[in-house]
Structure formats: structure tokens, C-alpha cells
């Protein structure tokens, strides 16, 4: 039998020194931004009852890590934060004054596809805004997403906004059945014009409506595309969705954030708990979105309380990869000091070391004590700025590195 004790399971990673430092730095920046904008941090358990996520097919069972508790009940490693937050909102936040703003940073686990920066264990940082359904709330959460991305140091990015009601509305008008709708949804999600055409050709649909459905894979870009659509052709549901997007965009314009957003009416990914505005964030250097979010007004209901909500989460590992590829990681300051000393100056060396640390300068005593060459090698490997030697009489000799 092969022994696995020196390996890590697929899709999980050790994160060592410099990468770990960069990751914490990034998390700190995000956490600070969330807090400044009024989102209070919460922690949720790493493990939950499987039922929390399986209700109504919220999350595919094959993408969850599952195991049992001591009573034989099924548990899951949390595959996301939004669902646990919905559980908390329904059961524990009953006395909070609206709007409830909370945020989280933590690891999630899922067996989704690997590669291109996607892991089975990954860190998500996100915000949830509960208790309001209004364009202001939708704009607020998108603004928060933009500010968080800005805080990470990425400057070229784009947030795409869609509205699930637009596609749903069009489909209701078209009279296609459930399977066909799913077929069309997949094709639109892949921007596959040919596929959409093939399905639509099998049906008699009002020609204006059909034209818009066929055009859906192309309906993305600047807000001009909203002008291209005649509201009379698309039915009430879809028209309301467009009005909703327009209102949200206007608010973002007033907040000077319009430059970061564009529209994608063909955004129809299958995250089945979304009910209104949805959005995704993209940047150069990584092939996958760095953030995604949207309105989920019926999710909290599953846990026994009617509560409207919206939120987003940012993939910390993905952002880190983007920063690295865009060469925007900030290297560690070279300011550390290694203190070597004569045996008789041990007390003085200890005092000096504490003094430096009290000033916020990283300092280490040379505990190796194998001579200048070895000490120097160590100091260089740690990226220190200098070695300070303390002589027996208390005088110091500084060697810059």
C-alpha cells in the first residue's frame, strides 16, 4: 500500500513565507476596507450540517466534502459563506436594525474543477447586505465590491452587471418549456449564437422577442446596449429588470464608479439562488472572475425568515494571482537587523534586540553562533538590511548588507 504521509490531498496547498505574508497583507487591506464601509466581520463554522447547503439543491452534492458526526448525521465543509450567513440571518440576527451589513474572510471547500488558480480549498472575502431590496442597496453592494478590489491594489478591472429577471422574463414571454429554457440558458452562457438559433428555430416566437433572445449573447458592453432594446417587445418582467439595471447604474454614476462597470444581459450562470441584479469582476492576468455576487431574496426564506439580501465574495487567491501576474505585489521592506555579539555582551545584545523590536524594526539575535560567514548567510536569506555586532565593551559595529 502506498503511503500518503508526505503528500497533501488534491486541490489544497501549503502557503509558505512570502506568499503567506502577501496573502495576509491582502486580507488585512480588504478587512480594513470592509470595516470602514460599515461591514462587521463574522466567523462561521468550517463544518455545517449538510442540510444547510443541500436544501432545494442549493449546492450540488458532488461538489461538497462530506463526512459524519458522532451521531451519524451528515456534515459538510462549507462550500461558500452566503448560505451560512443566510442561516445566521434567519436564526440569530432577528433583533438587528436594518440594513444588516456583515462581512467575512475565510476558507471554503469544494470539489469543483481545478486549475488556473482554482483550488479545492480557497479563501473568500465577502460582504452581505441584508434587509433591503432597492436599487440603492444593489448599488451599495457593487460599490463595496469595487472599493474592495481597489484596496487590493488592482487598478484595471471591470465589473459586469446583469439581472436574472431579464432572462427569466424573456423566457416567460417565449413560452419555451423548462428543458428548452435550460438549453437556451447554457448556450447564452457560452455566448453560443448558433446554439441559441437552433433552439429558437424549433419554435414560433414573436419575431421582435426572438430577435432579442438571439441577440442575447451579444448584449454586453457599455450601457448603450440598454438603448437598443424596445421595452414594448420584451414583456413586463424583462422590462422591469432593465429599469432596475438603469437605476443601479445611475446611482453608481453619482458615486463616480461608473467607469468600472459595464453590462452583460447574457449573464445567466447557474447560481440558482440569485433573484435580481448579479455581477462579476474581471481583471487582466487571470482567466477566471475574481469576484462574483448578486441579489438573493429567497435564500433566507429557506431557513425560516423572509429577508431580502444581496452580497458578493472575492476570491483572495485569484486576486493574489492577478497581482502577481500584473507585477503589483509589494516586496517586503528590507529593514531587519541580525545582532551578533561577543559572549560577554550577551545581556547588552538582548537589550538592544528588544529596543529595536519596540521601535517596530524586525530584529533577531544570532543564536547560530557559527561565525561571521554563517551569520551573514542567514541575514541575507532573511532579507535583512544589516548585521550589528556588539563588542564586549558595548561598542557596536554595523555591517550593511
Amino acid at each position, binding site marked *: 500500500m502506498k503511503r500518503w504521509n508526505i503528500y497533501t490531498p488534491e486541490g489544497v496547498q501549503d502557503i509558505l513565507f512570502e506568499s503567506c505574508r502577501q496573502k495576509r497583507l491582502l486580507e488585512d487591506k480588504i478587512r480594513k476596507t470592509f470595516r470602514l464601509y460599515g461591514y462587521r466581520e463574522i466567523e462561521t463554522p468550517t463544518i455545517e450540517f449538510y442540510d444547510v447547503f443541500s436544501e432545494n439543491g442549493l449546492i450540488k452534492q458532488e461538489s461538497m466534502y462530506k463526512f459524519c458526526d458522532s451521531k451519524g448525521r451528515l456534515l459538510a465543509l462549507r462550500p461558500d459563506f452566503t448560505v451560512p450567513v443566510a442561516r445566521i440571518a434567519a436564526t440569530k440576527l432577528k433583533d438587528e436594525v436594518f440594513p444588516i451589513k456583515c462581512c467575512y474572510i475565510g476558507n471554503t471547500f469544494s470539489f469543483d*474543477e481545478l*486549475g*488556473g488558480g482554482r483550488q479545492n480549498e480557497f479563501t473568500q472575502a465577502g460582504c452581505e447586505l441584508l434587509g433591503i431590496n432597492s436599487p440603492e442597496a444593489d448599488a451599495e453592494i457593487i460599490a463595496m465590491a469595487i472599493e474592495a478590489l481597489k484596496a487590493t491594489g488592482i487598478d*484595471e478591472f*471591470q465589473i*459586469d452587471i446583469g439581472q436574472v429577471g431579464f432572462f427569466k422574463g424573456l423566457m416567460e414571454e417565449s413560452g419555451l418549456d423548462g428543458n428548452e429554457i435550460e438549453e437556451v440558458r447554457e448556450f447564452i452562457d*457560452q*455566448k*453560443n*449564437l*448558433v*446554439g441559441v438559433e437552433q433552439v429558437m428555430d424549433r419554435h414560433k416566437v414573436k419575431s421582435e422577442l426572438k430577435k432579442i433572445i438571439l441577440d442575447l*449573447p451579444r448584449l*454586453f*458592453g457599455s450601457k448603450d446596449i440598454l438603448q437598443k432594446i424596445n421595452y414594448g417587445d420584451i414583456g413586463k418582467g424583462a422590462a422591469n429588470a432593465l429599469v432596475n439595471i438603469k437605476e443601479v447604474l445611475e446611482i453608481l454614476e453619482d458615486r463616480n464608479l461608473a467607469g468600472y462597470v*459595464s453590462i*452583460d444581459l447574457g449573464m445567466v450562470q447557474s447560481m440558482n439562488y440569485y433573484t435580481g441584479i448579479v455581477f462579476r469582476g*474581471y*481583471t*487582466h*492576468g*487571470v*482567466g*477566471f*472572475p475574481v469576484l462574483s455576487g448578486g441579489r438573493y431574496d429567497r435564500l433566507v426564506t429557506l431557513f425560516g425568515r423572509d429577508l431580502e439580501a444581496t452580497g458578493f465574495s472575492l476570491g483572495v487567491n485569484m486576486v493574489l494571482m492577478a497581482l502577481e501576474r500584473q507585477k503589483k505585489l509589494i516586496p517586503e521592506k528590507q529593514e531587519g537587523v541580525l545582532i551578533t555579539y561577543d559572549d560577554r555582551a550577551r545581556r547588552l545584545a538582548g537589550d538592544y534586540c528588544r529596543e529595536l523590536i519596540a521601535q517596530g524594526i524586525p530584529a533577531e539575535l544570532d543564536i547560530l553562533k557559527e561565525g561571521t560567514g554563517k551569520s551573514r548567510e542567514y541575514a541575507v536569506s532573511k532579507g535583512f538590511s544589516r548585521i550589528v555586532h556588539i563588542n564586549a565593551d558595548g561598542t557596536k559595529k554595523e555591517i550593511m548588507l
Partner: protein
Amino acid sequence: MRYITIALSKGRLTELSIDFLEGAGIDCSELKDNSRKLILTDEKNKIRFFLAKPADVPVYVEYGAADIGIVGKDTLLEEGRDLYEVLDLGFAKCRMCVAGPKELEGKMELVSITRVATKYPEVARLYFRHKRRESVEIIKLSGSVELAPLVGLSEVIVDLVETGRTLKENGLTVLDTICDVSARMVVNRVSMKMENHRITKLIEDIRRQL
């Protein structure tokens, strides 16, 4: 300006792909030089190309290592990657089919099929699971799939059929068509957004030639 990277399938799709790109005003001379360089460029338009094994093209594009790819629909189906499929280029046309001995013609519903030989295990698995709701044993082969039913390795095969001649000469026939296949242009989901103008223009320039 950033480079836009295009991944082309090495093999039967290469030449026609290049024709389309040239038709769109892209300088492919370096590509046609048969040089040993792996990555070739059109400096004027800031476009880079590379040739990859067809099955790898969707991978490069999904990960964003290439922004655009040209690849057969058969490969896209088999790889099942998360991409934008923006154009049917219309060449390299054929059909993905279930084929088997003549005796099975019209009797697909009656006999139970247990073994399927194919170069496209994912396509075959999905077809039998969704369309026929059957669990079959998929036997992955690397070539000459037609042999399998002849020597009793499997009852049927799933394979690309262009003219059907090979099947006919071996006493096999098409039992069901899974889908039509041709060369497609695919785009990475992020690139489509971040480089919308340049990529949309390229798509239009190629669409015009169809």
C-alpha cells in the same frame, strides 16, 4: 497595448484557420515559415499565436493562457471547458455518431448496449446518460475505433463520421447522430470582457468571411 494570444489547433484545422486570420488582416507570415519558434507574432496588430494539440486548445483558452482558440466542436464537447463559443467557422464539417453493425439498425431501443468504444469517452458517457439514460461501459481507444465491434471489443462505437466510407467498408452503419461538428472560434470569458473591442472586431472580421 497588450498582446492578444491565439491558440490554433495543430493538424487538419491549421491551414484553414490561418486563411481566416489572414482574411481578417492579420499577418501570419511567421506562422507559415515553418520555423521552430513556438510562439509567433504579428507585431503590427499585437497578436501572438501558437500551435497546440487540438485537445489542449480549450485548456489554454479556459485558463486565459490564450485569449482566443480555434478548435473542432468534437474537442470542445470532449473537454467540456468553460468558454465562450462565439463562431461556427463552418469548415472541417462532420458528424459525431453512434455506429455499429448493420443488424442493430433501427433496433437501438431494443437491444441493451453495454460496451461502447470511442476516442471521445466524455461525449459517449454524456450521450448515453442523458439521451438514453443508460449506464454503459466506455472503452477508451486511441485510433481505428471501427475495429472494436468487428473483433468483439464493444457492441457500438462513438466516433466522427465524415463520409461514412470507412464504416461502410467494414459492414458498420450510423445508428444515431449525436451532433454536427465543425471548427469553432472560442474566447476566454475574462478576455472577452477585458479586451472587448479588439476581440469583437476580430470576430466580426472573421464572421464577414463566412
